[in-house]
């Protein structure tokens, strides 16, 4: 077995020659001596001995390289070193800036059997904590095409793959500035006069480092930079891009919940399984469909799941400011109704306000126009099927009145619209409304005009997200509606003439690391009353005047996967009816 000195020389030559730019193949003796912290004379004496043993080729005044036998021996020492470093970090909890010295000692002591066990235990890793490749048991390394921050393309997303300087201070600097292997960054500018490189990190922060430091960070491109110069006007082009041809794509989201309410048994519910499909007939005509299965099972008339066609419309995209839509569509009311993919909102369940005041997911058949005018003014205006007042309830307001495009009565269609301002980065201000006549089920016919007004604001920048929403529902002729329903079902439903709700929410991503993901904490206060205003001679039940605090956290291992946890504390003004609090855990994803 070679001595530790021999192994150190072979390893230094192995690493040194690995960094030479072709066609150079010999490592200068000065570089080798510096790497081993010995004098050039000492290094030369030892190299001559290694040459006599057939492990290296030495050319006086030129340098040294490894023979095939020396190469394999050096690779196996390097393998031991890098596996030990990874073991110390992953198993023993060392930080990556303190493992090199330990590994220098241990690499000469451990047996091959120990190394094989370590390799299996670590899951046969390809790289060590610094991104250096770990040779296999035969000393082979898979070749990688890498560049440094001095050579990679500008303004292109690259992933840090390797840090080739193991100096402790340098490694700490790299860690502090989120430049460790696995981080996505881009080079913004190289200033040759100042010997500096400006880098934009995954958190969008900019950092300027020296060219020497930049040369020690190896990266791989994750996105090919596309240069398109001298483009001609749109009308002069045609058929160049695949999108000009019909194409179909499939996406979806899923939502899986665990709810453990007070005074009840815990429930596991596969709440939503949603598939979205789009088809582009051309760049101007598109179809969008959304099919949702709620609560996993649909069985006849029993209280189980629902299979719903939530969207199925065709968009005629005429211009940025004027487009026409027809089919089954989402009502443009509030924050959640049009923006309800699980990873984009905090909390396992949607806000109470978006359940009992705004009946999300609120969809129905209709047609209308939408577009964007100027800098960030967006509008939608649709004519849609009205709500069915015969299905309204005291507890859930107008929710059960959605016709859902199922042979919907449109004798007197409703209108809905939304105006949004999105010109300030991160900020969305919106106001929306809905108005329709909902009494079409009754004989003799009488009007139940229903109006919904809503205003909301959302601000999301970097780690912070703030939301607020206010909504109110007016049901005219509610007294007559109660009388008519009492005649039908035998019980007066006590439906209000006014419903009102509002909420405010603050979320902050306390952890944000490319290699780990993000963790956000949230708190939300909600106030919602489905009997906010009653018809004359009707009494509001305090149990329907409710408020809730929701505190929780979300972990995004990937921006499209959300693991959610929250606790909701729900109360009402009633001293008799106690609304249960609930512990909730959810897993939602988008693909």
């Amino acid at each position, binding site marked *: 077995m070679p001595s530790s000195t021999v192994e150190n020389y072979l390893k230094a030559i192995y690493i040194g020659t690995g960094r030479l730019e072709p066609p150079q193949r010999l490592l200068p003796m000065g570089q080798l001596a510096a790497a081993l912290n010995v004098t050039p004379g000492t290094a030369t004496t030892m190299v001559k001995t290694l040459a006599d043993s057939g492990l290296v080729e030495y050319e006086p005044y030129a340098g040294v390289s490894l023979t095939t036998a020396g190469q394999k021996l050096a690779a196996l020492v390097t393998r031991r070193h890098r596996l030990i470093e990874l073991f110390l970090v992953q198993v023993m909890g060392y930080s990556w800036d303190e493992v090199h010295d330990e590994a220098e000692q241990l690499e000469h002591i451990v047996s091959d059997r120990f190394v094989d066990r370590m390799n299996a235990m670590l899951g046969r890793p390809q790289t060590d904590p610094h991104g250096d490749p770990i040779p296999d048991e035969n000393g082979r390394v898979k070749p990688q095409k890498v560049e440094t921050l001095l050579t990679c393309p*500008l*303004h*292109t*997303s*690259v*992933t840090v793959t390797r840090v080739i300087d193991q100096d402790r201070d340098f490694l700490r600097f790299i860690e502090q500035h989120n430049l460790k292997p696995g981080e*996505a960054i881009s080079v913004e500018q190289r200033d040759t006069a100042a010997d500096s490189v400006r880098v934009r990190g*995954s*958190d*969008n922060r900019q950092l300027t480092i020296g060219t020497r430091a930049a040369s020690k960070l190896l990266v791989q491109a*994750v*996105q090919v*930079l*596309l240069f*398109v*110069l*001298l*483009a*001609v*006007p*749109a*009308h002069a*082009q045609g058929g*160049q*891009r695949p999108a000009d041809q019909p194409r179909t*794509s*499939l*996406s979806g*989201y899923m939502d899986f919940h665990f709810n453990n309410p007070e005074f009840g048994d815990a429930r596991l519910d596969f709440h939503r399984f949603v598939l*979205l499909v*789009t088809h582009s007939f051309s*760049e101007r005509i598109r179809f*969008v469909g*959304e099919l949702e299965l709620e609560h996993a099972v649909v069985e006849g008339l029993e209280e189980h799941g629902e299979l719903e066609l*939530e969207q199925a419309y065709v*968009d005629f*995209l005429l211009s*940025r400011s004027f487009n026409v*839509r027809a089919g089954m569509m*989402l009502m443009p009311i509030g924050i959640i109704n*049009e*923006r309800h*993919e699980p*990873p*984009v909102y905090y909390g396992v369940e949607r806000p109470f306000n978006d359940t009992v005041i705004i009946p999300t997911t609120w969809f129905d058949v209709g047609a209308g126009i*939408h577009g*964007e005018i*100027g*800098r*960030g003014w967006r509008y939608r205006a649709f004519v849609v099927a009205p709500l069915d007042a015969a299905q309204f309830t005291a507890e859930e307001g107008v929710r059960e009145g959605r016709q859902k495009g199922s042979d919907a009565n449109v004798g007197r269609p409703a209108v809905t619209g939304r105006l949004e301002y999105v*010109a*300030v*980065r991160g900020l*969305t201000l919106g106001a929306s409304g809905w108005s329709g006549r909902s009494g079409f089920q009754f004989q003799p016919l009488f009007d139940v005009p229903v109006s919904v007004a809503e205003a909301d604001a959302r601000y*999301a920048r970097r780690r912070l997200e703030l939301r607020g929403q206010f909504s109110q529902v007016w049901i005219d002729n509610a007294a007559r509606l109660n009388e008519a329903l009492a005649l039908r079902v035998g019980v007066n439903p006590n439906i209000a003439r006014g419903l009102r709700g509002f909420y405010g929410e603050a979320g902050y991503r306390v952890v*944000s690391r490319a290699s780990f993901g*993000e963790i956000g904490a949230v708190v939300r206060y909600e106030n919602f009353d489905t009997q906010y205003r009653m018809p004359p001679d009707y009494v509001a039940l305090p149990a329907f005047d409710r408020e809730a605090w929701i505190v929780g956290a979300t972990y995004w291992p*990937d*921006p*499209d996967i959300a693991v959610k946890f929250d606790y909701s504390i729900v109360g009402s003004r009633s001293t008799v009816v106690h609304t249960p609090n609930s512990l909730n855990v959810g897993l939602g994803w988008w693909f």
Partner: protein
Amino acid sequence: MVVLMRYAFVSLALLAASAALLRVPGLAHAQDVKIVEISAERFSFNPSEIRVKAGTPLEIRLTSEDTMHGFHILGTDIDLELPKRGRGVASVTFQPAVGRYTFECSRLCGAGHAFMRGVIIATE
């Protein structure tokens, strides 16, 4: 005095010539790259309206605040895929002729995907 006046006249003439040269299209200003940073999130681009002088190279840098989005300028070959939140920046350089160029998200990103549109307005 005459010599001084002659020097002053020549200096002024050189200054005027330099200023005129700098205004010649194609020599200096026309090739200055205009950088625009666009943020994409469900379901909007920000900014969604970009104004540029025709012929100016426009370097567009795009980041996503949530999922993977697309960036396609209608009628051109430009169709980028934006990395997910925190995973980098997509860049493209586009030198428009006079006209309006609508861009849109080209990757299905959710229920409001169709609303993700914007425009580049290139003027004389």
